[in-house]
């Protein structure tokens, strides 16, 4: 029996997985609505400096995909938008999407940035985890797609207090429109692919690591922003406390992972990303000495073990097996790593310039709410539940899942899964046997 269904698919989430799924589906001739919550697609991959094990520049390999997705004749991008309601069945879903007002006309804005430069308010930039500031009218980052400004309504002087409007005066294209309203769109689709990605676990609650108390204890994603050429320090690896170069760096694994009190599971990618980050530090500055404090070195993917071996042999990275009991600080704000090494009876102290915490990958904030809207089950860890032998099927027929919202995975896995979820969605909408 051939099931008639709308040859349209919705992809929720505009990170690398969502982008890949949208492009695959679009290439198959299927119309795609890609819904992205933030003002730009790109997701976490845009925040990384380089990717393991090839050390490719992350944004360089991502940007062409973003451009392809944006220009794809079959893909409609809805950024700064959220899914609010999903009714119906596989083959025929009715979805309500809330398109938030940017207060900027997308057709007119060319992203020149004149407005942002003149905006009198500065707030911490989410993209750089607060390590840099942005205007209230802003582009999340330089390579954002679409290249259109957005006004942050919570901090805008005009929208909160009725004063200012400098951006409107400065814009030569008359692209600012404070009269814009949030709108709701109704979309009818045959299948849905969820690719909402992950959030990094906030280690503030793990007081033994001193995150937020000690300035030179940062998370892995913050490190990525620091070491990135277009990041807050121009790619110079400097300590947040005194902006001096960091020459001894400790990478602490399993922060919040494999931890029954927080996240009992393994986040899969951290052993590799910390190795990569240690390698990058050495490439930036050959004086850097890095230590990786780990429990098990999980280098299971293609080329990973060779990468770790090279990091030891060619880059002199020191791998120390043991659980880090705590981090303290000396008077010069140097972090001191207290590690219970596996082959020593007492804790070994190591003084470093900078400590990088490889934090857990956790489900995105808002996952619970979204799962209720989509009426799909989450597993015990808050990720979307799928079946082992049908790895992309959620608990609701017609809704498929890929990438880190399913389980922490690295980029190649996310991309492969995205194609896989696209195939499953295509089986529903592109006809054939039911």
């Amino acid at each position, binding site marked *: 029996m051939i099931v008639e269904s709308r040859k349209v698919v919705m992809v929720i989430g505009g990170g690398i997985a969502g982008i890949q799924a949208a492009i695959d589906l679009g290439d198959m001739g299927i119309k795609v609505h890609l819904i992205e919550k933030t003002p730009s697609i790109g997701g976490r991959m845009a925040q990384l400096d380089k990717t393991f094990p*090839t*050390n*490719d*520049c992350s*944004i*360089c*390999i991502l*940007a*062409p995909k973003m451009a392809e997705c944006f220009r794809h004749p079959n893909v409609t991008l809805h950024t700064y938008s959220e899914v609010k309601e999903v009714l119906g069945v596989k083959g025929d879903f009715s979805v309500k999407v809330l398109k938030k007002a940017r207060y900027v006309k997308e057709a007119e804005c060319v992203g020149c940035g004149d407005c942002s430069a003149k905006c009198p308010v500065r707030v911490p930039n989410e993209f750089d985890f607060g390590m840099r500031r942005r205007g209230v009218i802003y582009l999340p980052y*330089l*390579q954002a797609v679409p290249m259109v400004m957005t006004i942050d309504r919570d901090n805008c002087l005009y929208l909160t207090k009725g004063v200012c409007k400098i951006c409107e005066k400065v814009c030569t294209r008359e692209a600012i429109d404070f009269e814009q309203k949030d709108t709701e769109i109704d979309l009818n689709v045959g299948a849905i692919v969820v690719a909402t990605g992950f959030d990094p676990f906030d280690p503030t609650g793990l007081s033994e690591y001193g995150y937020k108390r000690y300035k030179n204890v940062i998370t892995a994603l913050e490190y990525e922003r620091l070491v*990135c*050429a*277009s990041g807050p320090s*121009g*790619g110079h690896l400097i300590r947040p406390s005194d902006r001096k170069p960091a020459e001894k760096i400790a990478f602490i694994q399993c922060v919040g992972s494999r931890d029954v009190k927080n996240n009992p599971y393994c986040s899969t990618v951290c052993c590799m990303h910390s190795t990569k980050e240690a390698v990058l530090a050495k490439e930036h500055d050959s004086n850097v000495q890095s230590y990786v404090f780990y429990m098990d070195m999980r280098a299971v993917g293609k080329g990973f073990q060779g990468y770790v071996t090279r990091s030891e042999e060619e880059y002199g990275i020191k791998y120390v097996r043991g659980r880090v009991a705590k981090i303290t600080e000396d008077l010069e704000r140097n972090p001191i790593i207290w590690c219970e090494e596996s082959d020593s009876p007492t804790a070994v102290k190591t003084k470093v310039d900078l400590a990088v915490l490889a934090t857990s990958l956790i489900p995105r904030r808002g996952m619970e709410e979204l799962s209720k809207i989509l009426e799909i089950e989450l597993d015990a860890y808050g990720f979307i539940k799928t079946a082992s032998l049908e790895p992309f099927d959620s608990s609701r027929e017609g809704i498929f899942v890929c990438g880190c919202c399913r389980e922490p995975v690295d980029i190649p896995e996310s991309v492969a899964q995205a194609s896989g979820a696209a195939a499953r969605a295509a089986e529903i909408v592109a006809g054939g046997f039911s």
Partner: protein
Amino acid sequence: MSQQDGFDPKILGFLCNWCSYAGADLAGVSRFQYPTNLRVIRVMCSGRVDPTLVLEAFIRGIDGVMVLGCHPGECHYILGNYYAEGRMKTLQRFLEIIGVKPERLLLDWVSASEGERFANLVSDFTKKIVKIGTLSTDISKDEFQKRLLAAKEAFSQHRTRWLINRERELLVEGNVFGERVDQDDFNKIKFESVVKDYEKNRILFAIRDKALSVTEIAQTSTLTPQEVLRHLIIMEQNGLVTVSEIDGVKPMYKKMRG
């Protein structure tokens, strides 16, 4: 910044669409400033750049050429930048042989996210070219045409192009017998070939309009009469030159038409 000592160099850059051109765009988006001397020709891949085109640029008065591709391992076309590297490095060495400062040809890598690096590369290169002066400070005006044109011809010859472009495979993957060729051995063979073709073309250039004797030909270049004669004998056998007259006891060689 551009007008130093009255010398305002002409710089030509070949930028690849996926990496260096994108990096240059990012420099613009980020407003990193650099000197105005650079003119860009966009190519899809740094592997598109033929050494003869670079020589053409020098012949026509460009003072410095930049060929910028993707970092090794990141080429959008997988291997293009390796070929660019092989060709440009060969050309750099050869420029040195014929008396042109090899620093006039820059081969480097810029990724799409390296806006600042691009700006710095252009600034540094421009400063360097200002310092070493215009091309005619390397070779005199009259030698200029002879050497660069002959060089261009040399890099157009079949055998030289074959060797330059086979280099990567032979060194990395080996020949049909699975033997890897040693870099130094290969360089010897490669440069021998280029230099031979170059010398041949110097001679042809000298006798293209007028018949000259062996000694006269030798005077137009750094070749000895014996070297000139060796070339002439082979070229005569291949029909490239002919003895058009005999002046006393001296045969006068002329380039064959066609």
